[in-house]
C-alpha cells in the first residue's frame, strides 16, 4: 500500500478495463515521473470527453453532438442498418470501408449470467427507428461468440416478422472472439459474404 493520493490513483487506474493491479501501479509511477505538461494534457482530454462526448440519440454511437457524424451524413445509405454491440465495433467496421449504411449500437449483448436481457440493450430504440419503413435490410454484426450469436438470433426472430431482410455477418470471423479484433480484410469479407438468417 502506498500513501493516500498515490494509492487512490492506483485504485482508480485499476478500475479501468484490462488494467490489473500491477499495470495500475506501473501506470501510476509512470505518471508521477512524467513531465507535468504531459499529464495536464491527459487530464484535459479526460475532462473534455466526460463533458463533451455524448451518445448519438439515433444510433447510440459516441458523438460530439446530438447526432453522430455518420447519422448526419446524407451520403450514407439509409436503407441498410448494421447492428453492433459497442461503439468500438463501429470503428472496426468503418475501417474496412465495405459498409455504406448506418449503424445501431446495442450497448452489449444478451447475457443472463451478467443480468443483461433485451431490456437492458437499445432494442426498443431499434424497433422505434424501424417504424418509418426507411430501413429495409438489417445486418446483425454482433460478436462471433455465444452471447453475440444469441443476441443475433433474438433480434432476427424479432425483426423478421416486420418484413425486413435480416442478414448475419459471414462466418470466417474467428469464433469466440471480439469483432474489434478481426483484421480489416476478414471483417470486409464477412460483410460481402453475409448470409440470410433463417430462424
Amino acid at each position, binding site marked *: 500500500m502506498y500513501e493516500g493520493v498515490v494509492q487512490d490513483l492506483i485504485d482508480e487506474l485499476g478500475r479501468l478495463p484490462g488494467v490489473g493491479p500491477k499495470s495500475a501501479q506501473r501506470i501510476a509511477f509512470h505518471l508521477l515521473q512524467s513531465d507535468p505538461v504531459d499529464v495536464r494534457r491527459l487530464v484535459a482530454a479526460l475532462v473534455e470527453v466526460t463533458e463533451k462526448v455524448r451518445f448519438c440519440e439515433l444510433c447510440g454511437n459516441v458523438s460530439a453532438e446530438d447526432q453522430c457524424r455518420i447519422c448526419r451524413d446524407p451520403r450514407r445509405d439509409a436503407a441498410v442498418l448494421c447492428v453492433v454491440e459497442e461503439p468500438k465495433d463501429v470503428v472496426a467496421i468503418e475501417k474496412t470501408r465495405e459498409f455504406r449504411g448506418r449503424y445501431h449500437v446495442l450497448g452489449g449483448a444478451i447475457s443472463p449470467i451478467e443480468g443483461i436481457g433485451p431490456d437492458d440493450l437499445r432494442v426498443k430504440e431499434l424497433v422505434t427507428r424501424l417504424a418509418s419503413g426507411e430501413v429495409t435490410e438489417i445486418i446483425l454484426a454482433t460478436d462471433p461468440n*455465444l452471447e453475440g450469436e444469441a443476441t443475433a438470433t*433474438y433480434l432476427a426472430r*424479432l425483426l423478421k416478422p416486420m418484413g425486413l431482410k435480416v442478414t448475419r455477418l459471414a462466418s470466417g470471423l474467428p*469464433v469466440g472472439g471480439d469483432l474489434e479484433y478481426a483484421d480489416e480484410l476478414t471483417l470486409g469479407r464477412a460483410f460481402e459474404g453475409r448470409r440470410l438468417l433463417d430462424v
Partner: protein
Amino acid sequence: MHVTHLSLTDFRSYPTAEVPLDPGVTALVGPNGQGKTNLVEAVGYVATLGSHRVSTDAPLVRLGAQRAVVRAAIARAGRSTLVELELVPGGANRARVNRAPVPRAREVLGVLRTVLFAPEDLALVKGDPVGRRRFLDELLVALAPRFAGVRSDYDRVLRQRNALLKSAGATIRAGRGDVRTLDVWDSHLAEAGAELLAARLHLVDDLTPYVRNAYAAVSRAGTDVDLRYRSGLGDDVGDGPPPGRDELRDRLLEAMARSRATELDRGVSLVGPHRDELVLSLGPFPARGYASHGECWSLALALRLAGYELLRADAAAGDGEPVLVLDDVFAELDAGRRRRLAELVSGAEQVLVTAAVPEDVPDSLAGARIDVADGEVRRVR
C-alpha cells in the same frame, strides 16, 4: 508418439525439473509424497489441458509462485514438436508450439495424446454419472480436438440458460416476463447439445467392442460386458443406430418445451447431454451397485484400455498411439490383473509407471528407472 523431454517450472512441488525420457517403459519410483504423480500429471496436462486430480489450475502452481510452466518435447511420426504451456490461475493460459505463440491454449490439444490410469479410475465404474460423461468427452477431445470447443460452448450456453431460468423464472411464471430470450437459449442449447450427443452416441458404438475385448483380456472371465448410453430423450436414442444431429436437435427442443414449466420452477436445465448416463453392465446386472470390487477394477481398466486401442486405431491422426501413464495402479490390483495389465501395455510405444516401491512394478515392465525423492529426479537405469 512419445515424450522425449519434460521440463517444469513452479509446477506442483517442483521449482524446476528436467526429465529426459525414452520410448518404452519408464518407472518413476520413490516414497510417498515425493512428486511422482506430479510429473505424470504434467504430462497429462500437456495432452488434455487439465489434471486428472483437480478441476482447477490453482493447485498445480507451486505454493507461493504466480504461474507454472510445463514444457514437453514430443516425437511423433519422426518429427519433434515442442509444446510450452504457462498456467496462470485466474487468467488465460498461454501456449507456444515450436516457440510460436498460438492464439489459444486449446490449440495444443491433439499434439500429445495420453491415456492415464489412476487409482481414481475405480470411480468410473462405482461413482456418479458425471465421471462417465467426462470419460466420454475426454476421449472425444482426444480423437478430435475440436470437441473441446463444442464441449465448452455447450457448458457456457448451459450456464447462461440456467442463469436465465433462475432470474426470469419468477417473472415468466407470473406471465409477465419475456419468454423469447429463453426460446433463443433453448435453440442454442439444442444445437450444441445435439452435436455433443451425436458424437457421444457414435463414440459408445465404436468403443463397445474394444471394452468387451479388454475386459475379457484383463479379467479372464467370459462375462458379457455392455455399454448403454442413456439419454433423457428416451431409451431408443441409445439403443438403435444413433439418430442424426437434426433429429436430436428437434427432440431436444421438444423435450425442453415439455419440461419448461418444471425448469422454470426449479431454475435449472433438466434435459440435455449434461444429464445423461453411460450405463455399464456385466451380464444381466448394471456394474454400479452389483459388481464386485475386482470386477469393478477390471471394468475400469477395460475402459481405459479400450480408449487406448481406439486412439491407436485412429488412422486419421497418423501415429496416434497415445503415451500410456499408469499412476500407482499396480498397487491396487491383485496378482492376476496386475500381470495381465502389464502384458497388455508392455508393447506400447511409451509407458510411464509410478510406484512407491520397485516391487510394485511388474517384472514384465522392466525398463528405464527414475528415482524421485526430495524434489530430485534422477535417472538410475
